[in-house]
């Protein structure tokens, strides 16, 4: 047995669950939008980046006056981060997708428009903030608070996993019980009939993008807290991984995104332990190809509201 499956395994598992939680939060955005529009929002990675950047700016503004940062700042930073994510997501829908939807454009057009929007957004940030990694002001000092065997679990990791669980549960409840949530599910199942029942479809679509944006924004701030840096292209790799996670769990399915995110995080971390860290991304992509080939509807099947 290679030691990545024995002695290293617990460490890799914990690391995998942490990054998997971030993937899951982003994956929810892909899943929601896909459920409603059958559209892969390729520019979702920039929503994550926007959230991360807003969190950074908020923290910089707060620490500007010499305030000592602590864990509370993290929660304060989550608010602008989530808001920024929501705003970017809604703006994307409004400017890159809605004009195409009005025209009933071909599927290819949406993908190209999304890629363009993604490139434009990341370059605007590049222009504004430059190419260098920016340090995220430290909010939560890493303190090991749990020891399982030979692994120490840090407070940061617990914060990320717990935050993800709370937000996913919140989203699940929202989609299942609220009026807007019912609208989302109705549009996902049958948009025309939803319209005949009085659902304002444009509003539902906006709400869907907003929800995905809030979660991706939060993921951006948590990512910044954990990895300590952000910059214009920070969303690229997590974005693709999260998409993989969404597909893995069954795109369009909220619980699928959660399970898919965690699974992908664990698989790529354990795999990286076996093959070397530089192959981490390759492993994730191979997982994607494998899932699409052998089980294209994912572990849980497609469709918002199928289980929720």
């Amino acid at each position, binding site marked *: 047995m290679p030691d990545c499956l024995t002695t290293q395994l617990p460490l890799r598992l914990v690391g995998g669950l942490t990054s998997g939680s971030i993937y899951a939060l982003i994956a929810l955005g892909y899943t929601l939008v896909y459920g409603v529009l059958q559209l892969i929002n390729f520019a979702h990675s920039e929503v994550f980046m926007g959230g991360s950047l807003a969190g950074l700016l908020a923290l910089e503004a707060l620490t500007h006056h010499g305030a000592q940062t602590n864990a509370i700042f993290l929660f304060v930073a989550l608010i602008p981060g989530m808001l920024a994510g929501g705003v970017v997501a809604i703006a994307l829908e409004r400017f890159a997708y809605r004009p195409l939807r009005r025209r009933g454009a071909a599927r290819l057009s949406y993908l190209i428009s999304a890629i363009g929007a993604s490139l434009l957004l990341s370059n605007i940030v590049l222009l504004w903030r430059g190419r260098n990694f920016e340090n995220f002001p430290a909010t939560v000092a890493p303190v090991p608070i749990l020891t399982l065997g030979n692994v120490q679990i840090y407070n940061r990791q617990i914060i990320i996993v717990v935050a993800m669980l709370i937000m996913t549960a919140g989203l699940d409840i929202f989609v299942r019980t609220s009026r807007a949530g019912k609208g989302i599910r109705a549009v996902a199942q049958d948009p025309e*009939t939803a*319209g*005949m*029942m009085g659902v304002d479809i444009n509003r539902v679509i906006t709400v869907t993008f907003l929800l995905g944006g809030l979660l991706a924004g939060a993921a951006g701030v948590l990512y910044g807290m954990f990895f300590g840096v952000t910059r214009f292209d920070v969303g690229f790799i997590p974005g693709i991984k999260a998409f993989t996670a969404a597909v893995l769990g069954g795109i369009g399915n909220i619980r699928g995104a959660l399970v898919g995110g965690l699974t992908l995080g664990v698989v790529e971390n354990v795999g990286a332990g076996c093959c070397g860290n530089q192959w981490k991304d390759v492993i994730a992509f191979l997982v994607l190809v494998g899932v699409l080939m052998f089980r294209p509807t994912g572990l849980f099947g497609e469709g918002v509201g199928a289980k929720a």
Partner: protein
Amino acid sequence: MSILELQDVHVSYGNIEAVKGISLTVDEGEIVTLIGGNGAGKTTTLKTISGVRRAAPGTIVFDEERIDHMPSHEIVKRGVCQAPEGRRIFPRMSVRENLDMGAYSQKGTPPTEDYERVFTLFPVLRDRLSQAGGTLSGGEQQMLAIGRALMARPRLLLLDEPSMGLAPMFVEKIFSIIREINEQGTTILLVEQNAQMALQTASRGYVIESGEIVLEDRAAKLLTDERVKKAYLGEA
């Protein structure tokens, strides 16, 4: 007085004109039926009234207000709701949630008497409340579709082929329920291929062929009309 008035409504899909200048009126409190064969433009007409297709050109007036440029949710808000062709139940929602969707345009939870009204008309739905819509039988789905539309408290109920795919016994039942709904004060525009039943239920009727109204009269008169007999009632 008329509650709904269509004037010279045209609807096209790309280059194909499906509805070519239809005019019709529905008076408050009556049942009007629109009969015609496959592809005559019946469903398109109803979808246009509901606002999911656009009249271009043409005017649609509901309760003295033009609705032909309103988005569908605004039209529902004004009291027009539809039980669409093929029932179109939300398959992964429970029966209760489907009913709630009918009441979507009224914010807040629907009052109990609205549910009760539906359950009185369709008692079987009460037993199926938590079952997923997709698991109901065809007849139950049709009842749910009508019940769902009633939850919107419509002043005008649009029914698109409620008898489609139902057993003959069920067809009778559905039509008697349609009459009952009408007697409770809801105006109904009924689209049907089953001309016999539709004309027996309605007070007036329009016959649509290839996107145009070719006949309009009192339902009783249409039932005896030679052309209608020949084309739609299967009589020589």
